[in-house]
């Protein structure tokens, strides 16, 4: 499971969870304030600061794997939506996906929502970085602090016992749900119910009933049993519950707090006292240079002609025509074709994967 504590004995391990909680809290405050493209640099610095903590805490990047996979979908979506709709900043069009001019009240076409602009991409980048800035600090808290310490620390800042217990139980139930789910899927498989073999439509229509129903029933039963178990062990008997973990603030905790607070103040200083538009300008230069290099590279190896031909070919297909000019643009040399090509490659790759995957046969 991602985010689960594993004992590693690093300085972060030994640090009080309160310091890490503070880091998380400050990350949130910072992100809330970063609302314009100029703040990209601030977010980048903050993220590199967070990755330093990762290094110190010896947290594996792979633990974020699942989350990043999930987020990458979000990021692509963000880039597309922001690129197409954000109409401030640099309005250089880098790619026209389709043609959707939007007239204002006077009938003048000011914006075309089929175009992706540099400003839009930059804004997408900003939103993405804001998400990353928060996501990267969460494992610093959860993966280096054992539950006992977290609960102790929360008790110390006078969070009520019941809320702490709810939090811990939630953390305990997450892997439990996962395990039960796997066990249930296996149990239904041996009754000839093969969810992997069902197609998407079948899955959505009925396949989850045999899995979700027992899972819910099981979890209710678990919750009931847990109530018995905590009552049997005197939970809530005394207000002054003993904390077994030693939670007194040590030198390293003070150092940690100073670093966190110091760095945050530095960020604030950069944000409000230093003009950061330089960063924005330099970033847009980098983006345009990269685009130029790519297109000149395409021209040199003669791919541009092929792409244009492909573009024409794709446009010739009657089915693709209805997209309202999805590939119909001559701007910046057939980017539509690039997208189309990538799409085709992806489909071919998927097909090859499916064919080469060992096909299971039915038993006689």
């Amino acid at each position, binding site marked *: 499971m991602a985010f689960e504590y594993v004992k590693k004995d690093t300085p972060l391990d030994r640090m009080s969870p309160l310091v890490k909680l503070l880091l998380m809290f400050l990350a949130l405050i910072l992100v809330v304030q970063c609302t314009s493209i100029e703040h990209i640099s601030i977010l980048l610095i903050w993220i590199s600061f967070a990755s330093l903590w990762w290094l110190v805490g010896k947290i594996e990047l792979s633990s974020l794997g699942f989350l990043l996979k999930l987020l990458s979908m979000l990021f692509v979506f963000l880039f597309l939506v922001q690129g197409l709709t954000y109409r401030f900043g640099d309005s250089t069009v880098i790619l026209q996906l389709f043609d959707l001019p939007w007239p204002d009240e006077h009938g003048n076409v000011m914006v075309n929502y089929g175009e992706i602009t540099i400003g839009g991409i930059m804004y997408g980048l900003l939103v993405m970085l804001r998400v990353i800035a928060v996501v990267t600090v969460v494992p610093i808290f959860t993966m280096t602090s054992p539950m006992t310490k977290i609960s102790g620390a929360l008790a110390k800042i006078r969070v009520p016992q019941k809320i702490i217990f709810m939090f811990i139980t939630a953390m305990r139930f997450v892997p439990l749900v996962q395990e039960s789910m796997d066990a249930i899927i296996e149990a239904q498989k041996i009754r000839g119910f093969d969810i992997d073999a069902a197609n998407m439509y079948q899955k959505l229509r009925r396949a989850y009933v045999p899995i979700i129903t027992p899972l819910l029933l099981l979890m209710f039963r678990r919750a009931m049993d847990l109530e018995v178990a*905590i009552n049997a062990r005197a939970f809530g008997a005394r207000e002054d519950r003993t904390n077994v973990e030693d939670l007194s603030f040590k030198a390293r905790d003070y150092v940690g707090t100073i670093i966190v607070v110091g760095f945050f103040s530095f960020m604030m200083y950069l944000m409000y006292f230093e003009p950061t538009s330089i960063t924005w300008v330099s970033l847009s230069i980098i983006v345009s240079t990269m685009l130029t290099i790519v297109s000149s590279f395409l021209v040199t190896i003669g791919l541009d002609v092929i792409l244009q031909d492909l573009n024409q070919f794709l446009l010739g297909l009657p089915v693709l025509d209805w997209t309202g000019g999805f590939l119909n643009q001559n701007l910046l040399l057939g980017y539509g074709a690039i997208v189309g090509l990538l799409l085709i490659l992806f489909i071919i790759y998927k097909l090859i994967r499916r064919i080469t995957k060992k096909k299971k046969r039915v038993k006689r």
Partner: protein
Amino acid sequence: MTEYSTAKVNNVTFTYERGPLALHEVSFEVKKGEILGILGANGAGKTTLCFHLNGIIPTVYTGVEKGSISLCGLDPWETPIIQLASKVSMVLQDPESQFTTTNVASELFFGPANLAVERDEILRRAAWAAKVCGIDGLEERKPKELSGGQKQRVALAAGLTMLPEVLILDEPTSQLDPIGTTEVFDVIKQLANTEDMTILITSHKTDEIARLASKVLVLSDGRVMALGTPKDVFAQTELLDSVGVNPPAVTVLAAKMAKKIPGFQERLERIGGLPLTLDESYSMLKELLDEGFFQVEWTEPLPAPPMSDETVLEVENVTFVYPARIPVTALRGINLKIKRGEIVAIVGQNGSGKTTLVKHFLGLLEATEGVTKVEGEDVSELTTGSIAKSIALILQNPDYQLFCISVEKELEFGLRNLGLPEDEIARRVEESLKEAGLEDMRDIFPFRLSFGDRRKVAAAAGIAMDPDILILDEPTTAQDYQGRHALCQIATRMREKGKTIVMISHDMDLVAQYADRLVVMVEGIIIADGPKREVFSMHEVMDKAFLKPPQIIQLSQKLEGYGIEKNLVTVDEMLACFKAGGA
């Protein structure tokens, strides 16, 4: 020994809200330092009784109550549960669901910390409890990194750290292997003797109860059927049998001998009743044999029914590694052939790879190395759905698979997955309902049934698939004496129809009685494989796998010098060998 710390239950009658009568006029008394064994079939009211004593009733569950309870001078109905909890600690049946925190150490701290015990004292108690229960060194483990047996030990240790005056244990050894069970019972005995704890324990393992308890209470349908010293209670073998409790095998043997051999009854009365433990039984028989009161006439036990030479399951050199942060090798080069019509038992400790191996048969796991073949076909090439036609696995926990609105629908589910015609489905449902004895429950929502009945539903669902091979995963878990035999008897009847049965278990009594062949696994390796009577004689193998042959086998081994030529597995086999002496 003060009057104050006695548990006293007086005429308690209890009915659950919207539920059945659970206890009916139950009365008993336990003195300080005593161990009370509570016996009874599933649904007899054992757990309800335990819940009464630590205040779970009425705090969590409510109902109508008559009678009075006094516990360490407190009335559980008047005292808040949290105040009671400092005097009385209870270890629940299911070790999984009572894990309240995220690792072993914090689990041990949880109870005393709630009571605001001082920090140093908590640490001292936790270290002591971990040592006593044999889990020291596991403090950093998470629940999922523990085996079922280890979890059960943690649960016990967590109860101990509260340092209660009264300790209530609800089936504390249901998931432990035989050696582990004996260890835990020894710990319990020691606590009663040295710490002067009063212990109430429910269990199906009567041989251990007979060995340790100072008093035994037998419940049936919420009523007290017998109460007294183990000697008195276990002497009533017929009564116990009728309420679904099986006395220790040696006691049953002596009782049956008393009926068969004239004069033995009087003899027994003179030496002080039926023997309860293996040693008692052995020394009694030895004395009587030496004296010539008995004589042994070797009677060959019935041979295992013949089976065909056709191999239905074949495992060749299978190695399996669970992928994880630290990969775990669960199977190491397993070779196994199972013939059609056999009953094979795979035995071994928790975590020895039994279930992993079985999952390979079904194609749920794919071997890292090696080949698994079902009826000659390589499992890795088959869809799981089609393997389900020839193999059925009856899971330990039926709750993972039951979801339908009625028992009948539940059975139909698998058959529909196989795509059978409607009339065939109806026929098979009818047949398997009958086979499992569930005809009266066909319209009930499975979740309302007792655990034992839910298992039967799961078993019926498996049988309805009409498999060639039936696999029982731990038929004993949370099952009483009758329940576990019911499942095995279904399996035996299936075998008579030419099916192959594979059983995973660490209940040696059951394995000895029903299996033909034993496969012993330790840490992913098969260390012994052969006919059961032979395997039970391999003492080294047994020790290595933390197994203990059942009482009758141990007795027959001890009596080898008197003409018992082979390991005998059932009471009746043993009984057939004894004749009155002096002829």
